[in-house]
């Protein structure tokens, strides 16, 4: 992914932004595998990701793609099989290899999920 494309997606969802983005990616890659971009810790399953503590996440299409990335790096065979997600204040950045219809679907799904008003609007306390 050297020289990948950065796509900046405004997010009002705060610390929930990364979870929303990952859930959107999973819609296209249901068997995705995950890696903490800061620590290198691997998460085989979505439930293992400590959202709130993770600011950067590599989302691989599946475990096989993750292995190739780990063993051989950014070779052409695995182009667009990993998305690098970064959570910043008010922003999710998705880094992809190249614009393709599949990537467009994923990015638009992230954008759609981040636009869900329940993530940003206040509700009143209720008993």
């Amino acid at each position, binding site marked *: 992914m050297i020289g990948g494309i950065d796509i900046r997606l405004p997010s009002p969802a705060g*610390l*929930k932004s990364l*979870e*929303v983005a990952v*859930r*959107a990616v*999973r*819609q*296209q890659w*249901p*068997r995705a595998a995950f890696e903490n971009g800061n620590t290198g810790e691997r998460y085989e*399953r*979505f*439930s293992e990701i*400590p*959202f*709130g*503590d993770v600011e950067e996440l590599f989302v691989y299409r599946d475990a096989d793609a993750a292995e190739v990335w780990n063993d051989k790096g950014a070779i052409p065979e695995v182009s667009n099989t990993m998305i690098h997600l970064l959570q910043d204040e008010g922003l999710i950045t998705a880094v992809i290899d190249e614009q393709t219809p599949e990537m467009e*679907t994923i990015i*638009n*799904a992230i954008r*759609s*999920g981040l636009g*869900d008003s*329940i*993530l*940003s*609007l*206040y*509700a*009143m*306390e*209720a*008993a």
Partner: protein
Amino acid sequence: MTTSTSDLEQAIREAGEGWLVDSFAPRDEAIPRLRRRIAEVNDLAQQRLGGNAPDLSEAALVAEHNRQPLKVKGFFQVLGGSRTPAMLLMAWRIIQGMEIKNVDVAYNRQQDFRLSVTLESPYGDRDEIYESSSIQDFVLFRHIGIMEVDGRPVFDGFYALKLK
């Protein structure tokens, strides 16, 4: 982000959901009631899911709050709103990553309400069906995320509401 409490009430307050306790009448009954509800959900999880069941004991829930408070916050919020263990278990399974495959809602004013939610696992586990006839459980849908994928509808995620 991690904390280290071992007490349910403290965990609820750390999560910013102290209203669950303070607004309950009588207040002293709040934590015992929440404990019973958590135990009911955990028992149901063991019955329905067997070896695949999440540990939803009070201690495990508090430990999960210490580890991943964002995940537990939304669950705390609905503990006070839903009285149906199956629907609370459904909420937890969505938090864990089960996907919402199907939702059926039937409602006839002043007659009946029926809610059926089918969850599917991305890892090949069996579908899980959760049902309720209590309209109070509709509150759970205030927490479920929505998105579109190529214009197609998706419910996914179970999020804490921001409260004022």
